[in-house]
């Protein structure tokens, strides 16, 4: 029964990991960009909620309604004014630029917010619903539900809307998209905004699920990265499945090897996938 409990916890936490990966997946899918500051964007969303909005007494849903558009603007502006200028010049420039941005953001948060642990205090955090012989932790149920909803919304956006078509056209072939009248730089900025907005949602869930620090950004980036590779490059559904696999692996590792091995177990799954199935679990499926 205890094992079932661990598996349930892992699958539910996987919803959050999948969501963390979605932002990176969008960046790679649309602009072929490995966005090394994505972890910091997630953590920025968490700080914005916990330090900026909660003290004002805003209810969580109202706060979320502020964080998501704000993060969209941050992601849009970063892409439009900084990252865009590094694209199309080879592998190195976007990596150096996004890595530099992550260093600046992480250390600015450190100066401003100190290294103290933060978390969002909600009654949900410790609540659980009994189900059979196990307890379903409510906050992780929320993680999973929100993560899945974001995936569904993204699939609809990319697959069924005019904006989604333009984004996919930009991703498939920027040159041709330009000749069809699509402003690709504008599309990239929108994609950067969407990715950061998803990061903001993930950040708020992260704040409610665990404690975080300015340095959590690096950890989040590596999780996002592993989730994307394990799931298969180019498939956002795969990314979500990858999130579940990674979270289950971490919690099983913590349970059987000890808490200090949780991260190692997650990394090992990544290495095993790289060794035996380098294309990932669900490579390249339409849409997105």
């Amino acid at each position, binding site marked *: 029964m205890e094992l079932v409990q661990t598996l349930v916890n892992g699958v539910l936490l996987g919803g959050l990991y999948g969501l963390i990966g979605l932002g990176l997946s969008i960046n790679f899918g649309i602009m072929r960009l490995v966005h090394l500051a994505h972890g910091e964007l997630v953590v920025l969303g968490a700080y914005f909620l916990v330090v900026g909005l909660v003290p004002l007494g805003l209810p969580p849903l109202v706060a979320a309604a502020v964080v998501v558009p704000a993060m969209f603007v941050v992601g849009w502006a970063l892409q439009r004014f900084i990252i865009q200028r590094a694209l199309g010049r080879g592998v190195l420039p976007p*990596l150096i630029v996004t890595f530099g941005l992550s*260093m600046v953001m992480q250390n600015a948060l450190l100066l401003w917010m100190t290294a103290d642990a933060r978390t969002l205090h909600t009654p949900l955090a410790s609540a659980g619903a009994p189900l059979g012989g196990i307890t379903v932790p409510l906050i992780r149920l929320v993680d999973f539900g929100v993560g899945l909803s974001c995936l569904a919304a993204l699939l609809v956006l990319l697959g069924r809307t005019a904006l989604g078509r333009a984004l996919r056209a930009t991703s498939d072939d920027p040159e041709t998209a330009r000749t069809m009248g699509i402003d690709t730089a504008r599309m990239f900025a929108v994609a950067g905004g969407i990715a950061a907005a998803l990061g903001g949602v993930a950040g708020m869930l992260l704040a409610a699920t665990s404690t975080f620090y300015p340095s959590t950004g690096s950890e989040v980036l590596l999780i996002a990265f592993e989730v994307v590779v394990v799931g298969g490059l180019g498939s956002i559904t795969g990314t979500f499945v990858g999130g579940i696999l990674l979270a289950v692996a971490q919690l099983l590792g913590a349970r059987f090897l000890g808490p200090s091995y949780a991260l190692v177990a997650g990394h090992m799954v990544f290495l095993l996938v790289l060794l035996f199935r380098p294309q990932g679990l669900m490579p390249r499926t339409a849409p997105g």
Partner: protein
Amino acid sequence: MIARIAILGGAALALLSLPLWADAGARSTLIILCYHAAIAQMWNLLAGYAGLVTFGQQLYIGLGAYTLAIASERLGLGIWPSFALAAAVCGLLALPIGALTFRLRGGYFAVGSWVVAEIFRLLFGNWAYVGFASGMFIRAARRVDPWVIYYASVGLAGGACALVVALLRSRAGLALMAVRDGEEAAAGLGVDVWRVKLFAFAVAAAGTGLAAALTAVQTPFIQPNAAFSIQWVAAASFMAVVGGLGTVEGPLIGAAIYVLVQQQLGGSGAVNLIVLGTTSVAVMLIAPRGIAGLVHERLGWTLFPVARRPSDRAQQLRTKSIPP
């Protein structure tokens, strides 16, 4: 040519005669400068010449430093054999690690290497033999004369530059740059792309491991979170990019700037890293070829020429063969 000999000769003379005219403060600054220059040079070999941008070189910093610590502190090996062991361990381990991470391309290779380094950081932090996350002292290192450490680090930085120059002027170097400029085209010309990249990767790992062993002797204390820290890559990429990626003198210029910035902003790590990050981004966007690249563009001059130009004879042949 004369300017080159004058600059290199003057620098060598100044560095070698340092005990005659400088104090312990200058010595320790130069030791730090030299091992940073070597680390940056190895990162430059990969990112600037082999097209392998990696954020995982802290793995070889940690492995090199821990190899020296374990060999000299736990196994009772002498300091110098421990150095050789550090280079060997890093160079050999880079082969399977490279073989695995080369399955990822571009940016994914960069971050995949970071994950591998993370695994080692976590494992060393859980390892009782090396004192868990609190680390261990390297007592044998305290018996080494600081001037010996100084000469070793000057030799290391000089050796790293000489290695890169020699490598680039060799056949392997030509293959390496061909791979960087276009893998398919290089493969089409008969270059074994995978092998050439793995060779460069192992050489850079061994060089980085050697520099890391020197940092361990200089400190002489080691902790997994510091030894396997991503900040080593932040430093290496800053030095290579600001100094001039894909040039031999670039990492030297970058290392000098890095050490200067560190000393000016000493105390607060966060401010230091914000300055490094901002500078890297600005240089990449405004002058992506760095300081050495600017000098080359404006004055047409390089300290270590490794570029190949078609010979005059080849030029003549080409002009003749074009019909009027």
